[in-house]
C-alpha cells in the first residue's frame, strides 16, 4: 500500500536519507525504529509531503506521491500524527477534532467520527470545550491521534507518540493504536522505544544515520542484531 523506493534526501547540504527502500502492506503494523537523528522523522516528512526527496520515489495505493503537497496527500487517505503533537493551541479540543475532518470526504461523516474518537479517548470528551494549550502531554497526544483519525485515513503514521510521556499513558496510547489497527487501518509506527515496537509490529525497519540497517519480522531478530543496527556498531 505504501512503498518507498531508493529514496535519497538532502537536508541543507547534509544527506539525511540514503537509498531508503521499504514496503507497507495492507493489514500490517510496520515499525520504523532508530535513535535520535537516525532519519526517522525526515523519512516521515518526505512521505507526508513536507519535504521533497532528491531522488527515488514514494508510492501510495499504486500512485506516486513524492511530488505532491502535504494537503493533497491527506486527501488520498494518508494521515500523519506528527512528532511533537503540533495541536492547534488556540482552538478548543472540539475545534481541533473538527478541523481534522477538513478534507471533503471526511466532512460528511464528521459526527460519526467524532463519536468514535470520544469512545477511543473519553478524556477528550470531558475536555472538549477546553483550549488545546491547556491539555497535558498525554491528552495532547490523544488529541493529535484523534485529529488524524477524523480525516478518515486508510493509512496512519504515528511519529514518536511515546516521547515525553509516562509508561501508563503510553500503554493506554498503544491500546488505542491496537484498536485502530483492528478497525482496518494500516499503521506505521515510528519510535525510539524499541521493545514495545518490536512486540507489536509485523514488520520492522531499523534506521541508523539515514540508512536501513535491519529489516524483517521483528520476532526473527536477535538482540545482537538489533543492538548493532540501532547503534551502528
Amino acid at each position, binding site marked *: 500500500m505504501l512503498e518507498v523506493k531508493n529514496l535519497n534526501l538532502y537536508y541543507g547540504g547534509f544527506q539525511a536519507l540514503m537509498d531508503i527502500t521499504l514496503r507497507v502492506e495492507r493489514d500490517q503494523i510496520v515499525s520504523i525504529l532508530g535513535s535520535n537523528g537516525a532519519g526517522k522523522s525526515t523519512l516521515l516528512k518526505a512521505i507526508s509531503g513536507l519535504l521533497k526527496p532528491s531522488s527515488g520515489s514514494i508510492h501510495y495505493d499504486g500512485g506516486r506521491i513524492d511530488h505532491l*503537497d502535504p*494537503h493533497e496527500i491527506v486527501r488520498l487517505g494518508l494521515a500523519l500524527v*506528527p512528532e511533537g503533537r*503540533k495541536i*492547534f493551541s488556540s*482552538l478548543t479540543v472540539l475545534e481541533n477534532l473538527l*478541523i481534522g475532518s*477538513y478534507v471533503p470526504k471526511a*466532512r460528511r461523516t464528521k459526527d460519526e467520527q467524532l463519536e468514535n474518537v470520544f469512545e477511543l479517548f473519553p478524556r477528550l470528551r470531558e475536555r472538549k470545550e477546553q483550549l488545546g494549550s491547556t491539555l497535558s502531554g498525554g491528552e495532547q497526544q490523544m488529541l493529535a491521534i484523534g485529529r*488524524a483519525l477524523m480525516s478518515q485515513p486508510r493509512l496512519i503514521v504515528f511519529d514518536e507518540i511515546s516521547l515525553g510521556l509516562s509508561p501508563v499513558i503510553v500503554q493506554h496510547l498503544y491500546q488505542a493504536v491496537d484498536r485502530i489497527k483492528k478497525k482496518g487501518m494500516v499503521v506505521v509506527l515510528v519510535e525510539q522505544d524499541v521493545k514495545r515496537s518490536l512486540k507489536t509490529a509485523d514488520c520492522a525497519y531499523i534506521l541508523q544515520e539515514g540508512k536501513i540497517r535491519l529489516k524483517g519480522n521483528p520476532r526473527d531478530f536477535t538482540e545482537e542484531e538489533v543492538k548493532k543496527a540501532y547503534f551502528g556498531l
Partner: protein
Amino acid sequence: MLASLEPLINGILLGGLYAVIGIGLSMIFGIMRQVNLAHGELMILASYLSLVFIQLLGLHPLLTFLFVLPAIFILGYLIQTFLFNRVLEKGMEPYLMISFGLSIILQNAMLLLFTPDARTLQTSLAIKSINVFNLFYVPVIYLVDFVGGFLVLGLLHLIMKKTYLGWAIRAASDNLTAAKLMGINPKKVYALAMGIAVITAAISGVLVGMTFTFYPHSGTQYLIIAFGVVIIGGLGSLPGTFLGGLILGVSQLVGGRIIGPGLQLLSGYIILLIVLTIRPQGLLGRK
C-alpha cells in the same frame, strides 16, 4: 456637565468604525504574520469605487456595497494569489516591499483617475443628527458607523468560530505545518483570508467616505488609525480590536475636547504610547 458626554458617546460610535478599519490589518497580521501597508489604499479605493457606482447608477452609498464588496474581494484574492503567495514562508521583508509598492501604485492610480479634489459619498445621513435629551447631538452617520462596525466584527466572529473556513484560518495561524497535514491548502486559505480582510477594508472605506471627505492620499492616515487600533486592542483578538477602536475613538474625541480640536490625533497617539508602554501586546492581545 452632561453635555461633555458628547465627545464620549461620539467617540464610542466612531470607535466602531475604527474597529472595522483595524480588523483587516489585524487579521492579516494574526493569520499570516504580515503587515499589509496597502491596507489604507484598499479602503480608499473602495470609497472611490463607491463614488463611481453612485455617479453611474445613482445609487445610495449604502447600496453600492453590493458592487464594491465583490469587486474588492476579487481584487484581494488576486493580489494574494499572484503577488503575496509568491513570497509565502519567505519572511516579512518581501511582503512589506510588495505591499508598499502596491500602496504607491494604488495611490497614484487613484490620483490619475480621480484628480486630487476632495470627495465624499453624499448622503443625508451625514447631515442629519439625533438630538439626545436636548444635551448634545449625535450625527446619524456615526450611529451607522457603529452599527456597521458591530455587525462586521460580529459576523467575523461567527465565521471564525463556526465554519470550516474559520477553523482553517485559525489553525493555519497557530501551526501552518500541522494545518497542511489536515488537508488545508495554505495558498487557498491565505487568499480567502486576504479576501475577507479586504472586504472589511472596503466596508470601512465606504463608511469613511460617507462620514468624512477623502482624497487619493487619505489611505495613509487610515493605515495609521488601523495600526493604532491593533496596537491598543491587541493582535489576534476580535473583541480586542473592537475595544481598541472604541478606546482610540474616545481618546481622540475626548482628548480633542480637552486639549483642543486641532490636537485630536495627538491625544489618540498619546493613549497609544501609554498602552505600548504598560502592555505592549495590547489590552486583549495574545503574548
